[in-house]
């Protein structure tokens, strides 16, 4: 079955071709069903591969890594670009998440986009995105990964700007594309540096782009490459990851990406694309472990992003903006996990986050759909009576992300925090900041929940009259995801409970060899772990309690607190409301100077005078020469014969004169 892994990306690609070429002629009911079915088929194949892989690992635990070579695209000397896939526990898990959650989002889209005129275009992009993401995850070499990496970037641009008639949407699309481009540039530099470093090693015999060859070599020759080279490579790769996974300093595109249709936010900006950076760091863990300084950078950036965007999320009033900043914050946790060497924990959080964040976005979408594109939570409230299914599933997701046991978010977040505290690469400071951010998460998520579904209904009369639960094509995916968000955590129960940690056991072979030189099993005492766990739970409950009082039970608390802090509160509130003015800062420091330079120096002078002069000059000369040559084509055979004779004389004289 593993050898059929190419089917997994193939199905969505078929969908792209069918909907892309004939979509306009297909009946509307077929388009969405077809696109969903293609991803569904991929999911079925992925599940079969998963069981096949499991069987093989059980038979022989060294048998966890498979490469499926399709063909060699270009082969020139040491450079060999293969179209080949890798199947190991890590890529299989990602594949399951991408196709599984992706499938549900495709189905949900059928309902959400029911009044969209360019349905075929939408589903073509969605399938193309799934295809690119699968390439990224399954590629067995840096080059193929880069193809997927760029592919998801392109699709995210197309989907964010899907309603391109809207200025803000097309601006957001461009912003995402440009910011990602900065990251991609760093990423490809990192890949090139990797290639040139390994190609020039005397005893490296593998393919200098192939993951397995590279990592195996590093494991076997730990000292062959100086640490600073690894540091540089990893820094470049990580900068690429901050672009794709929306970390400081390149996170700014993600909140704006909410301009796209809501299912897109669920698929791209929650469940899949943004996890590409974490996947890449986990995939390259062998490199990163050899660059401990960069690993520390990863952890710090992760935790700072986590708390930074959590604070912004505290005050936002757009339902999708809150979720967007919460995504950035949760991605920060994942990087924190990777940064302290707990790659399994990071990937675990990728999985649980995919469940509950997709659910949150789709729940938000369900609300937005019902309220005719109203996104401001100040104009919502009391929806629990109108939309029970949406409400209950949203509540489950909120509990999960807040980190209240036994829902999934608790297990993954707690594992990250535990490793941040106890691992060799960890530090109690990382844990502390992470814990404070967890408190904020719980607070702003329950704030969002209470303001949306509880209290008095602030929806205007006209809309209220039509309020109704979304159709089952939308709610059934919600229910499935709610189930996953609720129980998904049980695959990774901490070791202190002395039950098997299924996820850890499954992923263990991927990370075992690379990490064993640097890390040992967690060495903290069981009592400490229980204590920290208890603190996490208390923190989450405290957030819940505070939000409940502020926004539902005792709004006076909020007023009292506001007046007590008075001036400070206003300043803090305004700063957060304006997202720390980062967009304005970037605008001032980057965009304006670049604009000025490109307008005054590059455009008016450089392009207008120099380049245009050259280009137009060349073009004029070219066209003129072309016209001259054309005139030489007289049609008279005598002239032609003369030309041939002149040519012969030139050739003769060459040989005579040399």
């Amino acid at each position, binding site marked *: 079955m593993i050898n059929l892994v190419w089917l997994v990306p193939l199905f969505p690609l078929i969908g792209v071709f069918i909907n892309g070429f004939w979509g306009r002629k297909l009946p509307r009911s077929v388009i969405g069903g077809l696109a969903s079915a293609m991803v569904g088929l991929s999911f079925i194949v992925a599940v079969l591969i998963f069981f096949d892989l499991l069987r093989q690992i059980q038979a022989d635990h060294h048998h966890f890594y498979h490469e499926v070579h399709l*063909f060699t*695209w270009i082969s020139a000397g040491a450079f060999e670009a293969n179209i080949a896939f890798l199947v190991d526990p890590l890529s299989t898990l990602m594949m399951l998440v991408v196709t599984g959650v992706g499938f549900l989002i495709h189905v949900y889209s059928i309902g959400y986009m029911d009044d969209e005129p360019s349905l075929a275009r939408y589903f073509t992009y969605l399938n193309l995105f799934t295809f690119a993401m699968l390439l990224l995850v399954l590629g067995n070499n840096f080059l193929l990964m880069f193809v997927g990496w760029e592919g998801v970037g392109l699709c995210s641009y197309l989907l964010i700007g899907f309603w391109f008639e809207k200025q803000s949407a097309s601006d957001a699309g461009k912003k995402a594309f440009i910011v990602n481009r900065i990251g991609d540039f760093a990423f490809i530099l990192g890949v090139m540096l990797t290639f040139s470093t390994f190609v020039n090693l005397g005893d490296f015999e593998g393919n200098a782009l192939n993951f397995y060859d590279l990592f195996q070599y590093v494991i076997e020759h730990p000292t062959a490459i100086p640490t600073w080279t690894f540091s540089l490579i990893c820094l470049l790769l990580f900068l690429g990851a901050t672009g794709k996974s929306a970390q400081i300093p390149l996170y700014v595109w993600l909140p704006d990406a909410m301009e796209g249709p809501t299912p897109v936010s669920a698929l791209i900006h929650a469940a899949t694309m943004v996890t590409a950076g974490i996947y890449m760091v986990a995939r390259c863990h062998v490199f990163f472990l050899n660059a401990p300084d960069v690993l520390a950078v990863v952890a710090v950036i992760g935790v700072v992003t986590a708390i930074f965007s959590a604070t912004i999320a505290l005050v936002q009033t757009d339902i999708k903006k809150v979720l967007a900043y919460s995504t950035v914050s949760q991605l920060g946790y994942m990087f924190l996990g990777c940064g302290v060497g707990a790659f399994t924990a990071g990937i675990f959080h990728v999985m649980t986050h995919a469940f509950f964040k997709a659910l949150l976005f789709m729940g938000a979408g369900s609300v937005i759909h019902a309220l005719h594109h109203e996104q401001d939570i100040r104009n919502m409230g009391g929806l629990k009576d109108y939309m029970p299914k949406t409400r209950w599933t949203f509540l489950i997701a909120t509990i999960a992300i807040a980190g209240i046991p036994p829902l999934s978010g608790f297990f993954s977040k707690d594992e990250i925090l535990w490793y941040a505290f106890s691992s060799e690469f960890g530090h109690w400071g990382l844990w502390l900041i992470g814990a404070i951010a967890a408190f904020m998460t719980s607070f702003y998520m329950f704030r969002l929940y209470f303001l949306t579904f509880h209290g008095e209904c602030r929806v205007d009369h006209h809309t209220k009259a039509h309020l109704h639960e979304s159709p089952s094509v939308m709610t059934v995916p919600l229910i499935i995801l709610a189930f996953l968000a609720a129980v998904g955590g049980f695959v990774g129960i901490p070791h202190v409970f002395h039950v098997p940690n299924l996820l850890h056991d499954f992923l263990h072979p991927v990370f075992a060899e690379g990490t064993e030189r640097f890390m040992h099993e967690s060495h903290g005492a069981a009592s400490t772990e229980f204590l920290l766990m208890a603190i996490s739970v208390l923190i989450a409950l405290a957030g819940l309690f505070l939000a409940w009082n502020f926004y539902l039970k005792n709004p006076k608390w909020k007023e009292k607190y506001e007046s007590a802090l008075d001036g400070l509160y206003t300043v803090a509130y305004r700063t957060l409301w304006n997202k720390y003015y980062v967009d304005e800062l970037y605008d001032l420091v980057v965009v304006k100077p670049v604009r000025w330079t490109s307008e005054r120096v590059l455009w008016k002078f450089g392009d207008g005078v120099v380049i245009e002069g050259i280009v137009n000059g060349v073009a004029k000369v070219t066209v003129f020469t072309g016209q001259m040559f054309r005139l030489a084509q007289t049609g008279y055979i005598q002239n*032609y014969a003369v*030309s041939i004779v002149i*040519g012969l004389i030139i050739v003769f004289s060459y040989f005579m004169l040399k």
Partner: protein
Amino acid sequence: MDNTVFTLLPLMILVGFSLLVLVADMMLAREQRPALGIVALIGVIVSLISCSWLWNAPQTAWSDMIVSDHFALFSYIIFLVSTGLTLLLSMRYLSEEDIQFGEYYALLLLAATGAMLMASGLDLMTIFIGLEILSISVYILAGFARRNERSLESALKYFLLGAFATGFFLYGIAMVYGATGTTNIKVISQVVSEGTIRSQSFLWIGIALLVAGFGFKVALFPFHVWTPDVYEGAPTSVTAFMSTAVKAAGFAAFGRVFLSALQPMHADWTGILWILAVFTMFFGNITAIAQRSVKRMLAYSSIAHAGYMLIAIIAGDANLSSGSLLFYLLGYAFTNVAAFGIVIYLSRKGETEFDGKDYAGLAIRHPWLAFVMAVCMVSLAGIPPTAGFMGKFYIFSAAIKAKFYWLAVLGVINSVISVYYYLRVIFVMYFEKPAADYVHGTLSLGMKIVLILSVIGIFQLGTVPGSVMALLQNSMMVFQ
């Protein structure tokens, strides 16, 4: 009769089928004549099968006058692909132009036979005979639209200038014979490398004449002068054949002589070919920009492509050069026949202007046709993932490997120039409004097959080139 006679099996099959076509022609009514195309097509397919049969046992025959090495056999495949596709294009086209005569199909098969003889000739005389069989067939084909003045004019021009060039070529052979005492390619190579030449200047004059002769056939600057007029005047299906099979035959023989017989003198002849390649590329591309008719643009583009192909020969390493050259020629055959096929479909008797109503908005009227044309243009421009990109990639990397850095750079610059006029076709098809009074035509079955096969071929060579390149490894082993 020993089995070396089967070395010529693919040629004999074609000759047999061309006779069959002529005989059947007499027995068929006028409206049944397109069936002759099917007969010829069967001949091409049978010949292709015989090529694969010969593949594993390369050998020489007839006192080393003929060789069936992989270079020759792969060239056969290129000729047969291009002949087969041309036949599929022609059946309906000839009826529309009212020139449905059986000789057409027979001549096409004979021309292919001549091309094969050029590719497999291990003796300058064999190559010359192949050249003549090919040329005379194509002279007639160029003037096949006998009631069309332009067609007749082009045939006459081609014939007169061709006779001129043939003279050069034959003199060249004589001079080489005078210098080395032989016309056999293997022996020439031996004599040259041992340095037992009788007269150095004779050899140089001979090489110069051969360059002119080949330069005429493959349309190198300044021997290209006939190309635009003949390509434009000839029936379009014949132009498709000339720009692919005839050019490929010229290059096969060119490669055979220069990469094998004259390989030991590599350093002496690269200079002049370098100059010719650069001028040819620049001339072809720059003049193509100024063209308004697509057919004429493709004629100049075909001159430019001859320049790229010449780079492969200049690189001079027998394996790398011949491999990349043949790969390029195969990709070019698929691309160009399809492009000319679309020109045929859109031209409907008369000039095909760029800005005319035929191409404007083709994407709306005929999305598939526009797509195929766009694929062809992208491939000709050398943009991945198409055959044109991989072909250029192999040729330029051969040049770089042989340390002809500047040549590779100039080749890339030329590719960039060419993008301008290829993309203009795409622009017109996709972004200009179609004329209101346009009447829908229908595609013949043969045309559909050509377009589908070509697109498959272009993408197959562009995405999975490894399998074909593996066939071309050591293609010239036999006679080295």
